[in-house]
């Protein structure tokens, strides 16, 4: 394979990229803007759940409970009603997600040594808020009880490693970074070959002595370069804007990212060998490769709860390995001694992907 030939090809691609006026803003500005905005959005720290209260007891004890909820950062008191039925519209309209009712005999029960029962209703249509709402409510009540002197005999004391305050940003921001890299590189490379055939230069390329490997490499190297610059730029945002700690080595991060990018580029290339038009390239890359990876990577939805078939399928998802690597490198500071299986998996996947793409890239039109 002629290096000089490939270099000539790469130069051509870079010149074309540079001449496209919108490309620069899309490739560089957009990811940074996206990362910044979405980094903030991808918070799973559910706070300020809208709460509506119905105090039917009007005792000191019940007021204590209401205060406990009001003071908690988990809840945001949006209203209180006098009659229990009045709670319904609050939940139906979505203005409140959790409704707490303190029954009439609450203080009396406590006095008599019986358990005071507080009813907590959660809006289950948003299951995450529902689950957490219930859990938080339970927590608030426990805390209130403890404050009044009740003791929990067996105390489960949590010790959280790597992320003691459970700041979800530390995990999700690198996750958004990974998603962005994947989307950008795949988008670029999936148009690679299709554009040439649509323009008519594909035929001209086929008639020259260029070998398939030379053409493919020439197409991919520029995109890899662009992807790398994007990654480095976005990394600045992750490290210095979001202040996500990088406890591992940058070298390990770089290698894992390079491997992952190779997979993404390869997938995009595969798409471009499958598509005849640019619209098809878009469809296939989005539906077949981008969306599944987002879902099956373990970033948002835990893999371990998926049915066995899907769990097996996730082994073929490059993003899954990159996600594990990112988590480990940023927050746990691990290196290749732990990550070598992920690195190997990415290498194997990249090889398979490129081989298939190469096979599909036929030198003859017929």
């Amino acid at each position, binding site marked *: 394979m002629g290096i000089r030939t490939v270099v000539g*090809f790469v130069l051509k691609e870079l010149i074309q990229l540079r*001449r496209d006026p919108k490309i620069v803003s899309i490739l560089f500005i957009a990811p940074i803007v996206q990362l910044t905005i979405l980094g903030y959005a991808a918070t799973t720290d559910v706070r300020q759940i809208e709460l509506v209260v119905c105090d039917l007891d009007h005792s000191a004890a019940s007021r204590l409970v209401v205060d406990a909820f009001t003071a908690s950062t988990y809840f945001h008191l949006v209203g209180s009603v006098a009659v229990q039925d009045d709670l319904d519209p609050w939940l139906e309209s979505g203005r409140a997600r959790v409704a707490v009712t303190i029954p009439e005999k609450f203080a009396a029960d406590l006095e008599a040594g019986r358990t005071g029962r507080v009813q907590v209703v959660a809006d289950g249509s948003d299951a995450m808020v529902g689950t957490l709402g219930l859990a938080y409510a339970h927590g608030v009540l426990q805390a209130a009880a403890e404050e009044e002197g009740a003791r929990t005999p067996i105390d489960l004391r949590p010790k959280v490693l790597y992320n003691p305050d459970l700041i979800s940003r530390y995990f999700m921001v690198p996750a958004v970074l990974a998603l962005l890299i994947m989307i950008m590189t795949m988008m670029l490379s999936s148009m690679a070959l299709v554009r040439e055939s649509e323009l008519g230069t594909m035929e001209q390329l086929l008639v020259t002595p260029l070998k398939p490997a030379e053409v493919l490499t020439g197409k991919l190297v520029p995109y890899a370069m662009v992807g790398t610059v994007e990654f480095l730029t976005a990394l600045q945002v992750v490290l210095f804007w979001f202040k996500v700690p990088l406890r591992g080595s940058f070298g390990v991060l770089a290698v894992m990212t390079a491997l992952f990018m190779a997979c993404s580029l390869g997938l995009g290339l595969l798409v471009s060998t499958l598509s005849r038009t640019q619209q098809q390239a878009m469809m296939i890359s989005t539906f077949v490769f981008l969306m599944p990876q987002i879902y099956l990577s373990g970033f948002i939805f835990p893999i371990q709860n998926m049915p066995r078939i899907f769990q097996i399928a996730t082994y073929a998802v490059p993003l899954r390995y990159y996600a594990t690597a990112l988590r480990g490198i940023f927050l746990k500071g691990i290196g290749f001694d732990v990550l070598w299986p992920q690195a190997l998996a990415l290498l194997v996947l990249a090889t398979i992907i490129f081989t298939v793409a190469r096979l599909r890239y036929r030198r*003859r039109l017929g």
Partner: protein
Amino acid sequence: MRAAVGASQEATREVVVSASELSRTFGDFVAVDQVSFAVARGEIFGFLGSNGAGKTTTIRMLCGLLSPTSGKGTVAGFDIATEAPAIKTRIGYMSQKFSLYTDLTVDENLRFWAGTYRVWGNEFARRRDWALNVTGLESRQRALVADLPGGYRQRLALSCALLHEPPVVFLDEPTGGVDPEARRDFWDLIDDLSEGGTTVFVTTHSMDEAERCHRVALMHAGRLLALDTIPRLKKVFPEGSVLEIECADAARALERIEDLPEVVDVALFGDRLRAVLRSADDAQTLESGLRSAGCGPLTVRATAPSLEDVFIHYIRQAGSKAPP
């Protein structure tokens, strides 16, 4: 219908492109049907036919872009089916779309395409200067191809195909949408190439262009109907059997003579008729016949047959001999 491959003079020169019963089908559709020919070095060989006649498919097979369904072919001594990579280094190709990168400059295009043929360094500098000179783009090296008019693009595309000085060059409808003067300049270029020993294989659907070729192959519906030099192709009409008739009411004259047995074909060209007779002897009777029918004043003149006449003749012949 098979035609003779050529006179003895051509046969002594080296054969650079050959086809032997070359065929290509796409499913049920036969695009190229057992085509055979041999092209000699330095020849300007024209492949004439309408769109869909099989010209582009044939060229694609010769260039190694498409594999033949059956038959054989060689280019520069190499087999098109098995030795395509070797062929690619020895040919130049220019497609209908003048495939140039419109978002690249003249210089960048030259450099890129040269690179694909491994033409670098000093050799590239030499060839680039030649290309700029021959295309007239010396002062426009930095211009984007998108900003160039059609004629310049055409010449640039041709020169990009020649940077590696290939012995054979394939041009597929190279003058589409280009003004007549540019077209003429282009063909002057082709003449120069041919004199320099480069073999030029051109496809076209323009009869005028085909006149500038040394030999022309007539393609229709995938078959090669005739192949010869133009003078000899035109000899298919006996001397004086093609007439040009000027008269006051041409349409009426047409009606009068079109069904006559001695008239093979007649067509209306504005206010003139062009008639092909079975034999030159019938010219007199035809003229008197028209005069007596009151179509005068009229002029009847023997004229040279055009390639179009030849083509139509062969198409008719092929049609009447249609296979069962």
